[in-house]
């Protein structure tokens, strides 16, 4: 099956209606970094493509409460955005270390999500930050929480008529003291699909864990939250014992397999170590900030 036509969408509205009225075997293309290979390898088929590159959906808008990222914003644009760096460091790190500069300049956040790889680097941070996906069908827009978007490897809840238009990440209040981390293991520091990736966000209130999201990639049919590890941490102090218990519990929250990149057993070990490492780094950051803060108040006194 060869691609027989390409239609270039010039606006979000035009893209949404092209998708809504699209014939069978029509696919969306944005960066193309996954789809072009899948088409060549025969892993996915398309007779017609709707090209979103110039659809004007590549905005990154920041306001007081949230950052709204257009579906065709490139991974490079995410990595360069100062607001994302300041408020969502795990998303920043995931974007800045994804593949290579040539891929980051093409690949889009919408593509990374809709390709629905269980190893997608941007998805674990979006899970850790409770991102909301705005989906358009014709003129109707609905919101889908990212943790209800994926249904399996390469599969999600969108129908042929739906278009992902925007990703919304809500900013934590400064008083919520949120910290977060992204960790990725691959065979080298660039150009790799993750053996495991992890994103952890954590909020402390009066020294106790008020909320935490632990998201893990490439260890289940979709990226998953380590629910039982999170439950163990809530209400606790971030002690070495609490961290070790959470890391152990996270292993029960995943269902890894053996594949070309690694084995299930190794992935379990990495998950245990990643959860521990991320939480230790956050605990160290909190300790450093507290020490710095008390030093400052002493010098002011």
């Amino acid at each position, binding site marked *: 099956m*060869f*691609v*027989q*036509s*390409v239609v*270039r969408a010039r606006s979000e509205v035009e893209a949404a209606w092209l998708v809504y009225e699209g014939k069978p075997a029509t696919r969306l*293309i944005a*960066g*193309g*970094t996954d789809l*072009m*290979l899948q*088409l*060549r390898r025969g892993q996915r088929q*398309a007779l017609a*493509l709707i*090209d979103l*590159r*110039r659809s004007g959906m590549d905005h990154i808008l920041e306001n007081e409460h949230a950052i709204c990222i257009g579906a065709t914003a490139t991974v*490079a644009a995410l990595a360069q955005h100062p607001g994302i760096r300041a408020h969502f460091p795990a998303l920043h790190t995931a974007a800045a270390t994804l*593949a*290579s*500069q*040539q*891929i980051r*300049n*093409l690949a889009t956040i919408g593509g990374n999500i809709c390709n629905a790889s269980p190893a997608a680097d941007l998805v674990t941070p979006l899970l850790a930050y409770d991102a909301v996906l705005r989906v358009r069908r014709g003129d109707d827009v609905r919101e889908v929480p990212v943790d209800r978007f994926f249904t399996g490897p390469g599969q999600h809840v969108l129908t042929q008529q739906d278009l992902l238009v925007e990703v919304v990440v809500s900013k934590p209040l400064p008083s919520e003291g949120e910290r977060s981390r992204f960790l990725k293991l691959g065979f080298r*520091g*660039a*150009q790799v699909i993750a053996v495991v990736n992890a994103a952890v966000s954590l909020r402390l209130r009066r020294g106790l864990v008020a909320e935490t999201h632990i998201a893990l990639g490439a260890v289940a049919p979709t990226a998953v939250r380590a629910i039982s590890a999170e439950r163990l941490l809530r209400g606790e102090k971030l002690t070495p014992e609490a961290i070790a218990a959470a890391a152990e519990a996270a292993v029960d929250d995943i269902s890894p397999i053996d594949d070309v990149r690694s084995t299930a057993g190794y992935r379990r070990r990495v998950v245990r170590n990643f959860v521990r490492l991320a939480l230790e780094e956050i605990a160290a950051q909190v300790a450093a900030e507290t020490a710095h803060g008390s030093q400052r108040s002493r010098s002011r006194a």
Partner: protein
Amino acid sequence: MAASEADLGRSPVALTINGRRTVLDAAPGERLLDALRRAGWLDIKESCGEGECGSCTVLLDGRAVCSCLLLAQSAEGADVVTAAATGHRVVGALRRAFVEEMGTQCGFCTPGMVLAAADLLTGDGDPDEAKIRRALAGNLCRCTGYHRILRAVQRAAAELREEVQP
């Protein structure tokens, strides 16, 4: 004979290549890489064809991209720069520096290296070694061991900085 992708009707794609307005003919599913090479831009190389090696890098509206992953039709209206560009300050300085530092052996990866480095130096005139290595992480060279490539990029960056400061 079996139908092939090339038999499908090609349509014109108007774009700028190295400062010249050009119209490429491209089949609907065709890669920019193929359309460019057919039009005679043979300085763009194909090695892996999967976005891993960086040989087919071009600058698309100023940013380095793999032309093997880009639909030719998507490049409509774009400004494409290849390593053969004349009158491109950064690409020119890099090309000279690769010669002076002998940053090339078989030469197949060189155009991609030059353009990935051009993307970096356009945004950052004084990158440290780690930044240069990161910027070139998507380009594979099987001859040089990268050391002379690194030196070439550092030399070009220094030359460009001198040009700016009279």
